[in-house]
């Protein structure tokens, strides 16, 4: 017998005489009473809580803010579909991991954000870039539009395509493995810089 | 309080005391104090002599088969009463949460039915006083500083909440001092105290440290089993802190002539 048949058979035997599956009540879905402005403000406050850099600006200021966020020296990479000009940046053309390791900063767009948890989500399309891009460089500048920010986790789920890879980012990489003391910056970008753009 | 009398209800309520096996054998004063207290509150409590134990010591050790006849005895002794009062959160918890397991194991539907019928009428002492009698001030007098340990089974299995502390706060002359990490287990845990004695003592010593830090004269709890463990540690350390059951405190009244504050 195959392992598959054995395991499925064992599952069925284990469940002989078991009660029916319960009804799942989703009483946790409390409609948010916060205004759009409050949601954006909460997002900014909670991103900052993770020791990320976060700033807010109008659409016409984005390019300037990006230019200020990236280092004067050192290579910067951007995904092909990024809608803002980044001076001196190279477009990702499938750089190897080692090549990316020599890059200092990356600028990407976001797919969505969650105010309750201060999270940005990337689904790694044209404007967010593939996963390695926002991982290997030490500084990640992420531009998110206000209308991409949702109040809580449930609100954002329906916006996502489960078949796309998704990265949920809440602050810079961190560890609390030594004496429970939080240290920002381990393997992922040590600095996360979020620019929230008004719409 | 004196004019409160449940016997004045349309149907006189028959109330039984389940004294618990530990109070019966080791702490009869606590049993006597429950009787004194309830009589003072107008409850003519009876002691069904056929009672033994709730069966928890066996169930918690894994001897569920052995608990079956004990459960039968329990149900036989108390089935005829309107309410059963027990000075133990642990025993009341066992009745509500474990008796169904025991009767299921016995494969005896009649026993299951009778014990399920009885369980909601079994009350821990503070529940009975606050919920059934509707009393907070029991007219007690106890001029001492007191720390209260909530005990895990009263707190979590039974959910007695702040009933015991409300009762204590209403006692004349009593000063209730806050116990830090009060909700932490004392480390007793029935046979755990013997099977894993070292760990049990290590947990208990932290409880004792917190008790001593309050500076209270007396540590009060609603379970004699936990108090035996904590009291044993306090006595071994010659700490001078006494342990008392909630009933022992609530039963005290101002002596004739006024007493000393």
């Amino acid at each position, binding site marked *: 017998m195959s392992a*598959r048949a054995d395991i499925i058979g064992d599952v069925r035997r284990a469940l002989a005489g078991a009660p029916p599956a319960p009804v799942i009540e989703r009483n946790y879905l409390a409609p948010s009473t916060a205004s759009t402005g409050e949601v954006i403000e909460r997002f900014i406050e909670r991103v900052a809580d993770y020791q990320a850099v976060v700033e807010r600006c109008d659409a016409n200021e984005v390019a300037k803010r990006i230019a200020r966020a990236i280092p004067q020296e050192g290579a910067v990479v951007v995904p092909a579909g990024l809608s803002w000009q980044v001076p001196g940046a190279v477009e990702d053309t*499938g750089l190897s991991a080692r090549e990316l390791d020599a890059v200092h900063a990356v600028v990407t767009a976001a797919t969505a954000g969650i105010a309750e948890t201060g999270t940005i989500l990337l689904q790694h399309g044209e404007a967010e870039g593939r996963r390695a891009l926002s991982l290997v460089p030490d500084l990640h500048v992420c531009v998110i539009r206000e209308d991409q920010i949702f109040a809580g986790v449930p609100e954002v789920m329906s916006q996502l395509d489960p078949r796309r*890879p998704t990265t949920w980012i809440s602050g810079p990489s961190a560890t609390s493995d030594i004496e429970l003391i939080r240290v920002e910056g381990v393997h992922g970008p040590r600095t996360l810089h979020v620019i929230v753009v008004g719409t | 309080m004196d004019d409160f009398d449940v016997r004045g209800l349309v149907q006189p309520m028959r109330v039984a005391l389940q004294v618990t096996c530990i109070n019966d054998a*080791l702490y009869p004063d606590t049993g006597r104090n429950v*009787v004194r207290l309830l009589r003072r509150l107008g409850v003519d409590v009876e002691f069904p002599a056929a009672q033994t134990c709730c069966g928890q010591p066996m169930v918690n050790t894994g001897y569920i088969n052995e*608990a079956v006849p004990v459960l039968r005895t329990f149900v036989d002794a108390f089935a005829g009463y309107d309410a059963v009062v027990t000075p133990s959160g642990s025993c009341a918890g066992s009745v509500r949460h474990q008796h169904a397991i025991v009767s299921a194991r016995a494969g005896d539907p009649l026993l299951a039915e009778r014990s399920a019928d009885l369980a909601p009428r079994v009350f821990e002492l503070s529940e009975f006083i606050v919920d059934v009698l509707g009393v907070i001030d029991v007219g007690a007098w106890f001029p001492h500083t007191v720390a209260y340990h909530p005990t895990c089974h009263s707190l979590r299995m039974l959910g007695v909440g702040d009933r015991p502390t409300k009762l204590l706060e209403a006692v004349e002359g009593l000063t209730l001092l806050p116990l830090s990490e009060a909700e932490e287990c004392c480390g007793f845990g029935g046979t755990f105290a013997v099977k894993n004695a070292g760990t049990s003592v290590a947990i208990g010593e932290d409880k004792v440290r917190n008790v001593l830090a309050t500076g209270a004269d007396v540590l009060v709890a609603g379970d004699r089993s936990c108090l035996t463990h904590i009291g044993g540690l306090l006595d071994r350390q010659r700490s001078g802190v006494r342990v008392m059951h909630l009933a022992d405190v609530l039963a005290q009244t101002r002596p004739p002539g006024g007493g000393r504050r």
Partner: protein
Amino acid sequence: MTGTFVGMPAFPAAARDALDNAQLRANLDHATSTIRAKRAAVVGELEQWEALRIAGAAIKDDVLLRLDDHLLTLESALQDAGAVVHWARDAAEACRIVAEVARAHEADEVVKVKSMVTQEIGLNEALAAEGIAAWETDLAELIVQLGDDLPSHILVPAIHRNRSEVREIFLREMPDAPPGLTDDPARLAEAARMHLREKFLRAKVAVSGANFAVAETGTLVVVESEGNGRMCLTLPDVLVSVVGIEKVVPSWRDLEVFLQLLPRSSTGERMNPYTSTWSGVTAGDGPQEVHVVLLDNGRTRALADEIGRQALRCIRCSACLNACPVYERVGGHAYGSVYPGPIGAILNPLLRGVGSSDQVDSLPYASTLCGACYEVCPVLIDIPSVLVNLRAQVVDAHRSGLPKAEAVAMKTARATLSSSWRLALAERFTRIGLGAARRFGASAWTRSRDLPEAPQESFRKWWRRTGGRP
């Protein structure tokens, strides 16, 4: 390389050693109380916390009670997404599958994301035997691996080590450790970053577990903090994920429950720094060869236990460890398993079978039944009830052999407590019994605790004498 739990002594003996280690107790006390406070703060923020717990438990019950359907759905969704699905009945089979994938790519090393299940199956040791090095990339796992040590906590496996111990381990075992390394946690983390970067960049094969596997869409989820997970899941060409069959959740939307429950219960954060989800292979992004090993290894045995099956709801948040008074005093090693603490005390007997060893049989007794674990569990596992039920199984498993003193005592108690007159008779000996216990002292009880004075008469006797009217 890393130690093994095989042949661990039964819990009480192992706990005694741990209790004697003052440094360990100080580390544990600090760590568990810190994390308890953080958890309480972020759980208190969510009004709908109880509703989330109820939903979480219900979703997992749905998974378990229809596990066959969900597994088959998961399998075909994974295959549709380009993943290769393997099934493994036990640890050996799972390890063999991973080793074969590595060998097929001529890899002599793999990078690993922290995963409980690969520890459970002893994957590192199995790969080492095949000449394949498995590099742990989570900081705490790295500390454990370099220190030739055993994990002692689900979330923070090196919780028993303080900063100066970590520094010593790094200086001793890490050839590329910076010479002036201090014990500042930030410097230690940086040393780990440098040490592992080269391994991430060159690795061809990565091994992970998964926190969740979405049946409907074939999506796997890894929840982490450091970014080592993202490195492993993204950079190598080949990814093998070993997934316990109970990790399924039915639909994508169900993640909205668990991604709220897990971080708050686990690290006490609103959200962990990184969560990665992926469904099979994505062209031009990440590994182009993706394997998923669906593992039983005792889970169907646990599933067959009517009361115990709820343990399979566990999302390995470790809140129960941090809340447990026993764990706080003795740490994780005493449980003799990668699953320590309250969940370990039930999961190990359920997975391995009661009666399989004295060590396993000692675990259900490693609890005071205080219920603190149940109170914090995000999926409402009634650990105390499962413990009591497993104790009954332990007793039953030993009924045929020579009766232990305890069994004799319980039989006597059964007879005594079944009738009030026998109890009354027995109570005459209370004084004698307590006196004897006190005189012969040094018993488990009296080593550190006094015994109460025996009363002049039992309550029962007093009532008979006075009718309850003094």
